[in-house]
């Protein structure tokens, strides 16, 4: 099996690569590429993302044909895709970081700044927070409710259809921290930095 981590120059993906390789060992082939044909032929795709919503969308659009290839992979062919952090946020129709930017539009909704209640809550939301699993998701197999995950973000994904939400976390309000819509999975937290429990989520995705 081939799992491809999309390298579209969206910032630092070393930790994502290291964690997937650690979990995959020799059983699964982990590729890191922006080559469209390699993405098309893989069994699963990981879409990381760091920095701002706008910078990630811009970086994605800079690689000719990448958005179309990802659309074909996830929407037409319905193959499993995992978005991490801004990778998840880009599923939305629109994001408001820096300036209004169009997302991939895979899961209807918007990405807006976390309401910090006039400075009562520090931003970015950095550190370990517990997740509240609201529906069984395939990537949460053997993951206990209230497990701690590592977060770093200032913006949150607000989907229109609440049924896609698989977990939330409590910071200022209930923030959506995981979604599942058919073959599309996303985590706002960083499984690659969430210790053994995070690696288990990666393992679940690889074994889908």
């Amino acid at each position, binding site marked *: 099996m081939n799992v491809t981590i999309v390298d579209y120059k969206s*910032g*630092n993906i*070393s*930790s994502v690569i*290291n*964690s997937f*390789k*650690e979990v995959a060992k020799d059983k699964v082939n982990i590729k890191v590429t922006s080559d469209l044909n390699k993405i098309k032929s893989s069994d699963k795709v990981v879409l990381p993302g*760091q*920095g*701002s919503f706008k*910078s990630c969308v811009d970086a994605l659009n800079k690689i000719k044909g990448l958005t179309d290839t990802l659309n074909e992979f996830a929407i037409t062919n319905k193959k499993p895709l995992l978005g991490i952090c801004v990778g998840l946020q880009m599923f939305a129709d629109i994001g408001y970081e820096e300036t209004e930017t169009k997302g991939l539009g895979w899961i209807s909704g918007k990405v807006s700044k976390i309401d*910090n209640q006039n*400075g009562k809550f*520090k*931003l*970015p*939301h*950095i*550190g*370990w*927070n*517990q997740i509240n699993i609201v529906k069984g998701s395939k990537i949460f197999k053997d993951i206990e409710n209230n497990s*701690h995950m*590592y*977060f*770093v*973000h*200032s913006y949150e994904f607000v989907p229109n259809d609440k049924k896609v939400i698989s977990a939330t976390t*409590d*910071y200022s309000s209930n923030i959506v921290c995981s979604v599942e819509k058919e073959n599309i999975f996303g985590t706002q937290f960083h499984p*690659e*930095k*969430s*210790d*053994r429990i*995070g*690696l288990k989520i990666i393992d679940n995705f690889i074994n889908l």
Partner: protein
Amino acid sequence: MLKNRIIPCLDVKNGRVVKGINFVDLKDAGDPVEQAKIYSDGGADEICFLDITASNENRDTIYDVVEKTSKKCFVPLTVGGGVRSVEDINKLLNCGADKVSINTAAVENPKVVAESSKKFGSQCIVVAIDAKKNGDKWEVFTHGGRNNSGIDALEYAEQMEKNGAGELLVTSMDRDGTQVGYDIDLMSKISSKVNIPVIASGGVGNLDHLVDGIKLGKASAVLAASIFHYGKHSVKEAKDYLDSKGIPVRI
């Protein structure tokens, strides 16, 4: 609920861990990769490497250490010390660091903070402030505590937030290595001044100091070196103690 973080810090010189006392007196304390792994297995919320090889000799040793550590530790890794440019930051991130802390370069050229947070995201840019009390204010020091910039630490903290820093790592130079506790006054003043998380550093001698850093210093995270290094306390003991004092931690 967001948990307060405990961050063991390893001072690394020429690829080996040393312990710093007032930034001067150093003693070998082992292999950084092994120690980082022990800390992450023991429940450390993050690991911090401070490369005190600094700008002169053997700068490349830290890249090797970071690369090896990031393949074994799956909690966030922050690396600081001698980071001069956007290119240095890029290199450390490529080796597997999750965050980079910038000290001297942020004072000398604040553009480095603005540029790098724009390029890599503010989530990975930590500005380290070494502050020393002078009368009723604190001044920012650079070059591993050797040079006084004369800049007011509180104003500087605010400026760095504006420039795009994601976190501030605040070290009291008066307390560093003394084991008498954090400079609570400094921590709480900076923490109240900015909306980004503050990591308290410098002076931890016992577990109550960690409690004070969070409760009184209003820090989001507490960094400590020596109490963990020579087996005085494990990270788990520290977390259990904070938990017993009603401080939310990840256990």
